[in-house]
């Protein structure tokens, strides 16, 4: 802490971030923008756009992120609203908040295995459903399909929505409802003219985060299917690790940069709506 005056205090942190975050990032961007003989080029990017398999992976990733984020948002708000209106500070709050944290951030592999145990070919739910005449696997469902992987994603998307939206729901003050009703508003009127407009920016913002979260996630898919699932992270994995053809790793890096750009767009959108959300919910 010797250099505490001036700007000295930021040096250790800045150096650390530059080395362990900046350097890998630089390597990715640099590799994506150069040829093997180290000349500047955009051709890696144009190649990723012209390969049908990469285009398909992007399409799959976007569709997967879209429906899992929408489903996660709807059920996440619903669950969060049910928890917020329960006794505050109670055990229910604690348990829901803690397990949401675990499932949303830290449980990629274990939750994939839980789904294999439930909905795999000899999973408990699969066998139960077979007893009542529904045979998932002859009806075309597999856990390693987009639908199966997406169901797993919803398992961490809902908890993430609960974490993100709970503060906004808690920020809805009871006085607003009392004031609205005192002025003659019905419950529906309160919802339509007060609660929804106040919550909407937070809901849109949180849903955007869910979208980005699903788009960049790979742990669950990796544990469930491995690198053969046709989504962008898996394509990067096999381009870098697979030695399929010469120059494939540069295409993998270009895909990586494209992923970062998609997430950046999502984050800017989040930042824009969040400014509106802050107006009411402090």
């Amino acid at each position, binding site marked *: *802490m*010797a250099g505490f*005056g001036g700007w000295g*205090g*930021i040096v250790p*942190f800045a150096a*650390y971030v530059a080395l*362990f*975050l900046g*350097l*890998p990032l630089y390597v*990715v961007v640099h590799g994506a923008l150069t040829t093997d003989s180290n000349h500047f080029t955009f051709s890696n990017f144009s190649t990723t756009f012209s390969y049908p398999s990469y285009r398909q992976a992007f399409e799959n990733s976007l569709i997967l992120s879209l429906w899992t984020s929408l489903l996660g948002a709807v*059920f996440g708000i*619903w*669950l969060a*609203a*049910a928890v917020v*209106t329960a006794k505050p500070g109670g055990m229910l709050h*604690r348990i829901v*908040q*803690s*397990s949401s*944290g*675990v499932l949303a*951030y*830290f*449980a*990629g*592999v*274990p*939750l994939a*295995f*839980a789904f*294999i*145990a439930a*909905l795999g070919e000899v999973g*408990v*739910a699969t066998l139960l459903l077979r007893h009542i005449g529904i045979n998932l696997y002859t009806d075309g469902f597999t856990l390693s399909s987009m639908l199966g992987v997406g169901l797993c994603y919803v*398992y961490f998307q*809902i908890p993430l929505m609960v974490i*993100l939206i709970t*503060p906004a729901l808690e920020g809805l003050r009871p006085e607003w409802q009392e004031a609205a009703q005192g002025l003659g508003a019905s419950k*529906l*009127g309160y*919802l339509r003219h007060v609660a929804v407009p106040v919550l909407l920016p937070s809901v849109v913002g949180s849903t955007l985060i869910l979208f*980005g979260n699903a788009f*960049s996630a*790979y*742990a669950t898919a990796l*544990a469930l299917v491995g690198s053969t699932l046709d989504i962008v*992270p898996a394509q990067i*994995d096999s381009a*870098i690790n697979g030695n399929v053809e010469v120059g494939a*790793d540069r295409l993998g*890096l270009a895909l*990586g940069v494209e*992923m*970062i750009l998609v*997430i950046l767009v999502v*984050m800017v959108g989040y930042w824009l709506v969040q400014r509106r959300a802050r107006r009411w919910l402090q």
Partner: protein
Amino acid sequence: MSFTGMGGFRAEELVGQELAGGPLPTAGVRARRRGRPRVWRVTIFVLAAIFFVGPLLAAFKFSLLQDNGHYGFANYGQILSNSAVRSSLTTSLEIAVITAAIVVILMLPTIVWVRLRQPKLTPVMELVTLLPIVIPPVVMAAGLEVLQEDAPQWMIKLVFNHPLTALTPFYAVLAMPFSYRAIDTGIRAIDLRTLVDASRNLGASWSSTLLRVILPNVQTAVLGAMFLTVALCLGEVVIASLLLYNTFPVEMVALRLQSHVGVSVALSMITLLFTFLLLFLLSFLAQRRHGAASVRVL
């Protein structure tokens, strides 16, 4: 507060009755509502229980199924008896502890310094510590692979030869979104300037001010940051797996591929339970005065 069709439906019903000119039913409806649990809440709790608890129960049943076809707790015993599992767990625990230490040593002085000397850097810090969210783990892994390929021999020996040195520095970066927010919240909650001035006036050095004055005041926040970091290190699989390091989650995936499904599910259950206990403990810490540590990043 209702957010579903259910709530809206009831409100419409109420409006309808009022328009029909009947006696105002408000009081009666309220009493009835209080007496019986609301449908929309019960519905979501039942759905959540099926969707969330169901797979966990299924996983528990699976974890009891041993390789010999009988049910029992032998799979859980593998965490101690299977040497591959044990060594991967040791690796992951070592990574977790060292990463947590790095996070505190790096973040606490920096956050204190920013608050005291350059508060205008706060938005920059917030932005920089969010960056790991923008970069997907698989892209980070791709960057590290390229670095690894091009690295000179001494760097491979020094850094990339062992998971501890190869993964720990990067996990500390991945933990920044959590650790920055947890520690920053703790620092915001105390009167930092007064504490530091008093300590300095009494002749304490910067390091002893940091260790003996600031740290005890934000210990719950620091503990929270460490818990979240440990949880992250025990869960991270993408980078370790792509770089071929055998950490605990990577071993879990490998066991499944070797068709020891019961063992891998048992290890999953242990991980889930342990991580849950960490965060559950965190929620009690957060309640205490100086440490509103939270799992919320954005």
